[in-house]
């Protein structure tokens, strides 16, 4: 595993979910609200009702241009002004699906307007032009750890002296292609997600989400340390049964937490095996850390989840209160799962973790600088 880069500062961060911006999302999670609703898996074509969380006013079905463009535009309006997309201030655009629903819409309708949105390079180019960025825009995609990968690469670039600051944007908006795919894999069904809850069956929900972070070597109120991305290279859709993949990633950040008290923001989609393995690994690496997962409310925002949930973690530290695990009521998989919200004051920071298809794992330590 490559050496973990030195710490980096977060000069600005934000997110948008069905609840609104980071502050509104954090407040909704504190109230225990759920953004997920039972909606037809194939949008206007119907199908089984599955738990989805869409931005207000947005339909699942694709449009050209995509209905989520306005939300991304509004999100980055809050960015510190700067010449983004230049060599000294590059942009990393990360996500799992980009506008892939456009390919399905193109095939269904034959309308070429969908085509440009269907592939990451052309989708990102449309976004770059719409947002007025320069040409230094890189695309990174590693399934549900895409955002972490963007943060890590931006950090390395800054520490190598190749950029003054960097913007990482991460987004994943649902479409019938994406929801249909997860439904076909039998992991998105009528059940609502209950992260870290013991049971006979697991279920996930999917949600819209986008977030950004501006990274800087020495400017900003928040610090990232111990960033790690690791791929256990075991199988496309399953992890090593001994959970060693989860542990290998968390062990790399455990060094940064030595002597410090942390809480743990887990990936926790609601699947059973991965939930158990993640909890076991977290308990070994951070024995005293309360564990929370928010996908029981927000749904899994796929490639953007690492950055969306990091933005909520920032709000948690800023306001002094971390939302508990939503949807897990009942018997939790382990004693470390925090079902209720708790004060973040006694803690030095939070370890934020994400996991992905293909056995990819990622984590970071977030603290107030």
């Amino acid at each position: 595993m490559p050496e973990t880069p030195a710490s980096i500062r977060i000069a600005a961060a934000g997110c948008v979910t069905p609840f609104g911006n980071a502050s509104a999302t954090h407040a909704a999670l504190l109230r225990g609200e759920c953004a997920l609703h039972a909606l037809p898996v194939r949008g206007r074509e119907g199908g089984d009702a599955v738990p989805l969380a869409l931005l207000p006013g947005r339909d699942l079905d694709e449009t050209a241009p995509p209905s989520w463009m306005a939300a991304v535009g509004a999100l980055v309006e809050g960015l510190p002004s700067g010449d983004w997309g230049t060599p000294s201030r590059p942009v990393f655009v990360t996500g799992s699906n980009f506008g892939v629903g456009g390919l399905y819409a193109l095939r269904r309708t034959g309308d070429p307007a969908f085509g440009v949105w269907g592939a990451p390079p052309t989708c990102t180019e449309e976004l770059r032009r719409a947002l007025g960025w320069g040409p230094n825009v890189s695309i990174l995609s590693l399934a549900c750890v895409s955002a972490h990968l963007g943060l890590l690469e931006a950090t390395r670039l800054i520490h190598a002296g190749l950029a003054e600051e960097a913007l990482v944007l991460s987004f994943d908006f649902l479409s019938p292609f994406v929801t249909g795919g997860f439904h076909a894999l039998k992991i998105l069904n009528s059940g609502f997600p209950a992260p870290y809850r013991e049971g006979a069956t697991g279920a996930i929900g999917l949600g819209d989400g986008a977030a950004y972070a501006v990274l800087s070597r020495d400017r900003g109120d928040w610090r990232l340390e111990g960033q790690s991305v690791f791929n256990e290279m075991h199988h496309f859709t399953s992890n090593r049964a001994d959970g060693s993949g989860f542990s290998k990633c968390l062990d790399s950040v455990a060094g940064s937490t030595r002597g410090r008290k942390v809480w743990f923001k887990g990936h926790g989609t609601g699947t059973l095996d991965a939930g158990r393995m993640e909890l076991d690994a977290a308990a070994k690496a951070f024995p005293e850390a309360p564990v929370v997962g928010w996908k029981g409310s927000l749904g899994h925002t796929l490639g953007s989840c690492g950055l969306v949930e990091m933005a909520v973690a920032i709000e948690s530290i800023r306001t002094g209160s971390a939302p508990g695990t939503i949807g897990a009521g009942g018997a939790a998989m382990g004693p470390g799962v925090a079902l209720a919200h708790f004060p973040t004051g006694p803690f030095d920071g939070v370890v934020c973790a994400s996991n992905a298809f293909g056995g990819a794992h990622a984590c970071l330590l977030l603290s107030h600088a």
Partner: protein
Amino acid sequence: MPDPLLARLKQLIVETLHLEDIAPSDIPDDEPLVGGGLSLDSIDALELVVRLEKEFGIKISSSEEAKSALSSVGALASFIRQRADPSRIGA
């Protein structure tokens, strides 16, 4: 008397997963299908589930349900008998 549903399922498994070196009669009734001697993985299981749903008109809604149904050919036959319309199972 041999169970015709078991024989049909074994044939379906070999065909669906293109198991070239395995004859249907080689598949034991009670051996795990995934993680057993056939070396099937979760992708194979998914492919099998999709075929079974089409063949018998049943619905397997979660990965856990699939795992339980595919715990052996015998278990799969019981699962199908419980879920499928008898007319889809045949004699």
